[in-house]
């Protein structure tokens, strides 16, 4: 089978790149083994959150000072602003309603109640633009009875530390109580499946309206809307106070919804998404990759003019490590990593770990290197790349989105 471009990995970066190419009429196939790390996402995108441990106010400005090895430097700091606008467009085209600005971070709230710098946040989620001017004074934090994927006390304390007055209000409805019979299924995504009909939403809204009468704003765990934001909008229209969602522990409803919407849009543009298949090897001809083979289409190599590696980091198996080395398992391309195993980790789980920065080595066009030489038609994007640290720098989703669009541009220009 021949395509214009084959992408390995169907997470945020693979889909963003696939959409950019398909939109220009290219035939694109994405090979996607399993779900992605978006199911851990709390409803925000981060371009650059921290430099040297300090929160970044203006990401565009701060990007200029990043080392050459950072993916943003490879894209070119001067190009980031225009790419960032295209990311916003990509979301709105996919039906995802996000707001934010690349030259002024806002704050998103983690499930633990910690404020973290963010670039874009879903409009129905709580965000704070200015810590000195909170969007509300009195918050009613609605706590679902029997739902443990939201550490309510910590969340409330975090919000109080930010200056909110918080009242924790426990509530339930018949639909929610029914779920408690199976404690292992009392999760954000299961709740979202139950709370869909107008009557189920009305029962929730009734609780809000009777219990939260003193508040300026009602805050609720993000358990609405598996496929779009209509359930939330319905609930808002039934509630007589402004309503906002706050991220839960994974699996994340917001992340699942965004993935569904992106995938849907990609398919609408004519893209092919191979769910649950894994790229296992590639065939090279000199400095070009000619085809890849997948586990399930084992006797039909996927041929293409261009390939993109978007297979994620260790957690997604885009990178692997054994007792001796760190490696990229599908194509065996070069890795930036310490050779000495002692250097991979540092004492203390919460300390910066060197392995977070490991990844595929690329040139300034994001082309993968193999034995030190660039493969002309193979690019790497997203968290499989070396030179950034999503945990300590808060740049994970930004790197995924911006490298994805930059790589799509390179592919187009190279024709």
């Amino acid at each position, binding site marked *: *089978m021949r395509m214009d471009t084959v992408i390995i990995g169907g997470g945020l970066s693979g889909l963003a790149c696939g959409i950019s190419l398909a939109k220009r009429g290219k035939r694109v196939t994405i090979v996607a*083994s*399993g*779900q*992605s790390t978006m*199911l*851990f996402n709390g409803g925000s995108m981060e371009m650059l959150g921290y430099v040297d441990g300090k929160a970044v106010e203006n990401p565009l400005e701060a990007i200029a000072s990043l080392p050459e090895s950072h993916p943003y430097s490879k894209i070119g700091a001067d190009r980031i602003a225009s790419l960032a606008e295209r990311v916003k467009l990509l979301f709105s085209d996919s039906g995802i309603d996000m707001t934010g600005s690349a030259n002024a971070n806002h704050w998103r709230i983690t499930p633990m109640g910690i404020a973290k710098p963010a670039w874009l946040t879903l409009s129905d989620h709580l965000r704070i633009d200015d810590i000195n001017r909170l969007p509300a004074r009195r918050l009613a934090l609605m706590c679902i009875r029997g739902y443990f994927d939201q550490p309510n006390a910590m969340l409330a304390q975090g919000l109080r530390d930010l200056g909110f007055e918080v009242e924790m209000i426990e509530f339930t409805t018949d639909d929610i109580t*029914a*779920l*408690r*019979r*199976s404690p*292992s*299924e009392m*999760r954000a*995504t*299961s709740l979202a*499946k139950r709370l869909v009909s107008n009557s189920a939403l009305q029962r929730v809204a009734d609780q809000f309206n009777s219990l939260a009468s003193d508040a300026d704003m009602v805050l609720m765990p993000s358990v609405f809307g598996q496929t779009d934001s209509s359930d939330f909008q319905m609930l808002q229209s039934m509630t007589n106070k402004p309503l906002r969602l706050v991220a839960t522990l*994974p*699996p994340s409803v917001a992340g*699942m919804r965004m993935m569904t919407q992106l995938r*849907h849009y990609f*398919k609408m543009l004519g893209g*092919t998404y*191979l*769910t*649950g*298949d894994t790229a296992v090897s590639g065939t090279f001809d000199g400095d070009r990759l000619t085809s890849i083979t*997948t*586990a*399930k*289409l*084992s*006797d*039909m190599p996927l041929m293409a003019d261009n390939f993109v590696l978007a297979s994620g980091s260790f*957690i*997604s*198996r885009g990178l692997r490590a*054994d*007792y*001796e080395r760190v490696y990229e398992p599908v194509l065996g391309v070069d890795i930036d990593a310490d050779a000495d195993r002692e250097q991979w980790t540092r004492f203390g789980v919460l300390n910066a770990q060197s392995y977070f920065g490991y990844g595929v080595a690329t040139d300034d066009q994001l082309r993968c290197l193999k034995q030190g030489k660039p493969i002309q038609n193979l690019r790497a994007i997203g968290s499989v790349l070396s030179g950034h640290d999503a945990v300590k720098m808060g740049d994970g989703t930004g790197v995924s989105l911006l490298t994805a669009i930059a790589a799509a541009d390179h592919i187009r220009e190279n024709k």
Partner: protein
Amino acid sequence: MAERMQICNLSEHNFEQCTKCSICTTVCPVAAVTTDYPGPKQAGPDGERYRLKDPAYFDKALKLCLNCKRCEVACPSGVHIADIIQHARMRATEGHRATLRDTMLANTDLLGTMANLVAPMANATLGLKPTKLLMDSVMAIDKHRTFPAYSRQKFTTWYKRHAAKQQDAFAHHVSYFHGCYVNYNFPKLGQDLVKLLNAVGYGVHLLDKEQCCGVALIANGLYKQAKRQARTNIDNIRTSVNRDQRVVLTTSSSCTFNMRDEYPSMLGIDNADVRDSISLATRFIYRLVDEEKIKLVFKQDYKRRLAYHTACHMQRMGWQLYSIELLRMIPGLDLVELEQNCCGISGTYGFKKENYERSQAIGSVLFKDIEKAGVEAVTTDCETCKWQIEMSTGLPVENPISVLADALDVEATRKANGI
């Protein structure tokens, strides 16, 4: 040494690879509609830790699992969740006798043989209200279900009378594992395959002997019988591959998945030497077109709008691509690819009275999607999906092979392939 340590640590079904991320719980169609089922993570890897300690931890609710494998497709860590669940069920039910109802539902070929003999009567009787009520109360087969109609003439009878003789004349040859559905209920699908393959120069042959693939036997806990039939099938497939040099094609995604993947993993039947030679017909034909070995020419005036439904086992095999790409070759066909949702029937599961409501609730997402698609018919590679979608939406459902055969310009295709 280091490498070997890691190999030694690999357990059956990748059980220890579970990172407890809970992603599998988000896609399970059963857990989505009932709290009686603990969900794939709890039923699979989590519960297994207890069961390994003490089999008494087996939870009867595990029988609610559809074995649809959607959890496995979603798991980022490659855990064979549904296999863990099925094996736990197998261990727990060893030595138990299946009920008469389950035995009857599972023996699709026995039921078929009997019904074919008396087809008009069987169809009438199985469709009659009193019979249905009787089956509902005595056999616990839900009264809402309609048994798929039995054909008067078996596919094999038709084949021997009308097709067998011509097949040797072709330059290339394949064997066809028709399965119970084609043989007893819907010979037209087999006839369509013969028409399609003959038009591109391939002769179609039957295996020396075939038995029901046993997918329903496994689902209903009749493992011994399933093993016997699996051995017969693999032996005959082996003969076709080795003696006749013919690959074996099927037109049912469930038979295919069962013979390729469940035979070794569920029944311990080694099929490694012939597994690659068992293939779905759409995959085989797509590959021939892709490699430019054959050409398909379609009717000029063909015009239809259809929706493609990816059956669960098709998704697990990752082969929907072949059927979809093949259908997309038909110029006059406007194909809507439906979101991948379970239809809820899962073979014989939905026929059981205790499962009927759940089965319909599971399928409701898909049925709504189909309604929205505004199509005249649905196409899918699985026959039980066909029954379920036809019953629940009222739209006709066709196998992609039938759609292709219907759209094919036979004369032009023969000419294009030099026949």
